[in-house]
């Protein structure tokens, strides 16, 4: 789209018509040479599963959360996400605090994203491109196309290979916002504003998880 814009001559109708054709051709071309088919297949599979869970009208929120949690355990690198969200404080918690923190982060992520994703039921998420990042990471671009005419939403997936070589989700970018970075900003801020007390973060996290449970279904 941007490349097409920069070459468009706006005052020549012929060029304009040609660009329109060119744009539609580019849109149907396969992804670039640096594409990573394994990563793309992974995202297609996982996003379809997540959308299925969110869209299932027959299940209660608790059932949705359980299913989403299973998906998360199998295909997201939660310990890495949790460690990243602590930023410079990653070495701060004691082993007991770490175990408690990992448990809370898992619940927190499930609650937050079952809530936030509830807008996206029954939508399709076609892959628009992908590229390998280093030896162990991949970036996959996708786009949510809404059936009700809403502007499409760009979603980028950041994947990391685990020890067995399978991809796992590390972070997701929605319209330019990396979600793990957003969490890192607030987690480190809570610790810093409580004089480096890790328990303050644990307390806030469990409060948010409890609030989400108490919220209307």
């Amino acid at each position, binding site marked *: 789209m*941007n490349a097409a*814009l*920069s*070459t*468009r*001559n*706006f005052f020549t109708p012929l060029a304009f018509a040609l*660009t329109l054709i060119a744009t539609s051709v580019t849109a149907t071309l396969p992804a670039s040479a640096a594409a990573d088919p394994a990563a793309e297949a992974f995202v297609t599979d996982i996003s379809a599963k997540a959308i299925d869970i969110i869209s299932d009208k027959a299940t209660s929120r608790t059932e949705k959360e359980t299913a989403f949690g299973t998906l998360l355990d199998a295909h997201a690198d939660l310990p*890495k996400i*949790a*460690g*990243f969200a*602590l*930023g*410079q*404080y*990653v*070495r*701060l918690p*004691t*082993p007991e605090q*770490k175990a408690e923190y*990992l448990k809370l982060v898992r619940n*927190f992520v499930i609650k*937050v994203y079952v*809530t*936030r994703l509830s807008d996206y039921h029954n939508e399709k998420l076609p892959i628009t491109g992908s590229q390998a990042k280093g030896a*162990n*990471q991949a*970036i996959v671009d996708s786009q949510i196309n809404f059936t009700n005419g809403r502007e499409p939403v*760009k979603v*980028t997936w950041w994947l*990391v290979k685990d020890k067995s070589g399978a991809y796992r989700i*590390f972070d997701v*970018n929605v*319209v*330019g*916002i*990396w979600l793990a*970075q*957003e969490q*890192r*900003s*607030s987690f*480190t*801020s*809570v*610790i*810093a*504003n409580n*004089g*480096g*007390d*890790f328990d303050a*973060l644990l307390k806030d*996290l469990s409060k*948010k998880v409890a*609030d*989400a449970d108490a*919220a209307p279904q």
Partner: protein
Amino acid sequence: MTDHNMNSVARTLNQSFKMAGLALMLSLAACATRPDPANPAAVQAYEEANDPIEPLNRYFFELNRFLDIILLKPVATWYDGIVPDPGKQGVRNVLDNLRSFVVVANDGLQGQWSQAGSDATRFGINSTVGVLGIFDPATGWGYPQHREDLGQTFGTYGIPEGPYLFVPVLGPSPPRDLVGYFGDSFFDPMTYIFWDGPYTVPVTRTVLNGIDIRARNLDTLDQIERTSVDFYSTVRSLYRQSRNNEIANGKSDVDNLPDIDDLNFDTNEPQAVSPQ
């Protein structure tokens, strides 16, 4: 609203800006507690946040939330409920169309000449065929909307945003974007048309713009607030990330992402930094 009311709103706004200026000067003296230099994690967290006057920013953030609860949110909820969707879209289109001059000027300042041409054509089409900007036929004809402002232009020149700043009423406005905000008014013909008349037109525009943006984000903001451990720093992160995304015009730079290869959160690992 009557002219009289508008003028009082304008005076209040004006007053707020003066207060903000005063508060800024005060803040030079009242900085956030610096972290203990012996604690490297705290020092790095402080630098990553880049928010040296955080206590004052938090104060203004809470002030804005208060104003939002008692004034903006109720009005926006009312607006959202009472005005039919085509009406709201028309208002949004007119407001966006009025911003065209600022967008075209910044397209040019960023050297994006074809986008400037597109945006100028867009303004021409929507102001005429689109009946003074109420409708938006231009998007369908291949002249999509772009959002550019002087803060973004500075960003493309490589000027960093500077330390975080939360200004009452205006919201997140680090120095680069604050300067950009006032700078953009020089590109706006309405600044010159109405500069010594009553404030009615520019104030209506600003107020309507605020109500419309708030009305569009009623659910989103509630949801973010409900799901944030710390709403203030979440908003700070969302603001910074979305600005960087706007500056890059949505093109993500994969090489600019944080390095996570060596990130390890094994529960059995010894602690390198002891808790303070």
